[in-house]
């Protein structure tokens, strides 16, 4: 259907810019509100130590969030195979240490996780299978193979140097946080400044038009899943190194945490819109809120309840703002 009236277009523009601004401002305000409330409610909250803790705690899932942003933006709904890729990264990066040394082990672990992502990508991008089904199936198979491979036992780390590095600090900032920030920056650059990011946004925005504009849509779509798998592999590897132990179910739940952060950040699940800073802001908000609740002694089920309400609120508000901007 065509838009009637040139004048109405102005309203459209104003609407959508307003929406974008409002939703960005909303996120910032929400984070500020949590910080303010937290500072009043708990003396321990607004301390360098605690905030650094929050940052450290969110780094592992944060790396996954960066990848998941690509999946949502490209219109790939969600990657449910994250637990498998994290397990792959964690178990292999520890398990292969005695055989090939810590650095090659880490690299190989991440590469193999990327291979799982490639399988997802081929099924979603090239064969055209619904991402939910494809990643669910591949994740199940991947996790099954990982479990069969290690026979279900815990794999321990054997290289203390790598453990020290992963747990260590650089200029007073934990190494995992630095790695997360680096990956977030790279992710942000790729999504917003590089041709690949523009292609990702175009493919998510209108698949056919992107295809007809010589964008290699299939590869771009597949690429988002490879990016997520690589990120999860790195995340899993770091997890393994910091914990110095890994078990097959080490990554369970990370997929939902990552999706939650991305969605709360206002990245559209229908694709074509979103950025890494938004997703990271969503993650920061969720983590700070959880932290405040824990410091306040709120029980786990209540935390889950609040988080659920939060997601409903976030997507509801997003939909409402968007609707107002468009209708």
């Amino acid at each position, binding site marked *: 259907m065509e838009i*009637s009236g040139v004048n109405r277009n102005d*309203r*459209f523009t104003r609407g959508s810019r307003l929406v974008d601004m409002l939703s960005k401002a909303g996120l910032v305000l929400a984070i500020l509100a949590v910080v303010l409330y937290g500072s009043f409610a708990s003396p321990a909250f607004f301390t360098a130590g605690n905030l650094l803790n929050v940052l450290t705690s969110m780094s592992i899932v944060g790396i996954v969030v960066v990848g998941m942003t690509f999946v949502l933006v490209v219109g790939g709904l969600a990657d449910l195979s994250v637990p498998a890729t994290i397990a792959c990264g964690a178990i292999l990066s520890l398990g292969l240490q005695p055989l090939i040394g810590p650095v090659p082990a880490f690299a190989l672990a991440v590469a193999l996780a990327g291979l799982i992502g490639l399988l997802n990508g081929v099924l979603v991008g090239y064969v055209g299978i619904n991402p939910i089904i494809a990643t669910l199936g591949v994740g199940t198979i991947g996790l099954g193979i990982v479990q069969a491979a290690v026979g279900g036992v815990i794999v321990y780390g054997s290289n203390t140097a790598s453990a020290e590095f992963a747990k260590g600090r650089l200029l007073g900032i934990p190494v995992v946080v630095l790695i997360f920030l680096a990956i977030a920056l790279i992710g942000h650059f790729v999504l917003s400044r590089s041709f*690949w990011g523009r292609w990702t*946004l*175009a493919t998510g925005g209108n698949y056919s038009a992107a295809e007809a504009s010589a964008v290699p849509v299939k590869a771009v779509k597949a690429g988002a899943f490879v990016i997520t798998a690589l990120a999860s592999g790195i995340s899993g590897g770091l997890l393994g190194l910091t914990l110095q132990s890994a078990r097959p179910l080490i990554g369970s739940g990370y997929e939902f945490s990552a999706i939650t952060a991305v969605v709360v950040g206002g990245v559209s699940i229908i694709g074509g819109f979103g950025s890494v800073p938004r997703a990271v802001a969503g993650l920061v908000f969720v983590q700070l809120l959880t932290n405040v609740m824990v410091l306040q002694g709120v029980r786990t089920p209540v935390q889950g309840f609040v988080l659920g309400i939060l997601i409903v609120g976030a997507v509801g508000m997003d939909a409402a703002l968007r609707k107002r901007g468009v209708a």
Partner: protein
Amino acid sequence: MTVVADCALDMRGISKTFPGVKALSNVNFAVKFGTVHAVVGENGAGKSTLMKVLNGSYAPTSGTIKVGGNEVRMRKPADAQALGIRMVHQEINLVPDLTVAENVYLGRMPGKWTWLRKGEMIRKAAAVLKELGAAINPRERLGNLSISQQQLVEIAKAYAAQPRIIVLDEPTSSLSEHETAALFRILRKMRGEGIAIIYISHRLKEVLEIADEVTVLREGSMIETRPIEGITAAEMIRLMVGREVSNVFPKSPAEIGASVLRVERIGDGASFRDVSFDVRAGEILGLTGLVGAGRTEVARAVFGLSRLVEGSVSVNGRKVVINSPSEAVRAGIAYVPEDRKGDGIVPGMSVRENISLPILRRLTSFGRIRRSADRSLSAIYVKQFSISPPDGERRINLLSGGNQQKAVIAKWLAAKPAVLILDEPTRGVDVGAKAEIHHIIGQLVADGMAVVMISSELPEILGVCDRVVVMRDGRASAPLTRAELSEERIMALATGEEAA
């Protein structure tokens, strides 16, 4: 004055205001039973808004609506349907996963309580389709039909509801001339049954042929309602745009050079085979035929959007194998697709981002898009094509259809192709924008580009093209030169009355 008894619809003083915008102001619009009433106007003149008011999608800000003499208030499409008002949209709006019969009776399936009387439904649907002269099996899954067959099902659906008022919005946009003629037979039949028909079209020739009355809208206001006798196309255009548009189809006085694109005996194993043609620098080659003849399929295959199974393609004398659009771009081929909204624009992106999409790699150093190059590229084309508003940062879906189309063409010129394939470049574009697009195409060939233009509109083909290839059932005719061109000749080739 009209007699109340045969006044099917009487809309008086209709205004519709959106926050800050007046889309319709004080429109009076009346349609009599048993007539075909055409509504014409440029895009954005308020036709769609008026029809949305009529079918209950929008509530008017002020004004009254009388249907069959009684004042009514409609809050949703179902209210309009209960009053016997039916819409046939330009875009097919049916359910691909249901059968033809179920689509014809969608929302009104016959049955008792909730039980579906399937046999009765199929019988009735078959009868309606037969009455409309459409050879379609009512048990077939709708998704398996061709586009024009689906369009007929859409009309059958409206007709089966035994409406008192039927609104057709650009019903012929996906129909060939042949099928259009069949549609007009159906419309005349409906008119004979006393149905009031509202006919919206950009194709003034069709309006002149089928309408009894015509209403012209401009900028949200009703300009004039007149009987069709005594009005000419030129006059309608003047009323629509408020000015005389001279030379709708500017001819291109370009110098014709060497052959740029040559396809030889290509086929995709399904919708076309044994198609050969070539197009030369500075030349516009028309590709026409009935809808479904395989024109778009040929273009998509040459551009790498689908696979060729036989034949060869060469550009500037060199054979190329094209498996994807990016390979096509590298070979120097560009393609402006038929479905602008579906295949042309990325709605969430700005004009700038849309324009630079195909050649992004060339604007990139070390993976990073060079912002200045990106900006200046779009600035050039926004200016050259006078895209309005002249703001490259504006989201493209906020532009009018004509300006969107200009941006889509600009996107391809940025790639500096040797040959540009345009698929229905002026469909759904208003008269003024159409002239501008033709002007742009004229400039391109003047600069030595080779252009293939697919169009169903014969006057456009005749007016613009240097040579014309006519397709029928997946086969292509030999090219006709300007001297050989005539509407009759093309139709004869397209319908098979003359062997290719």
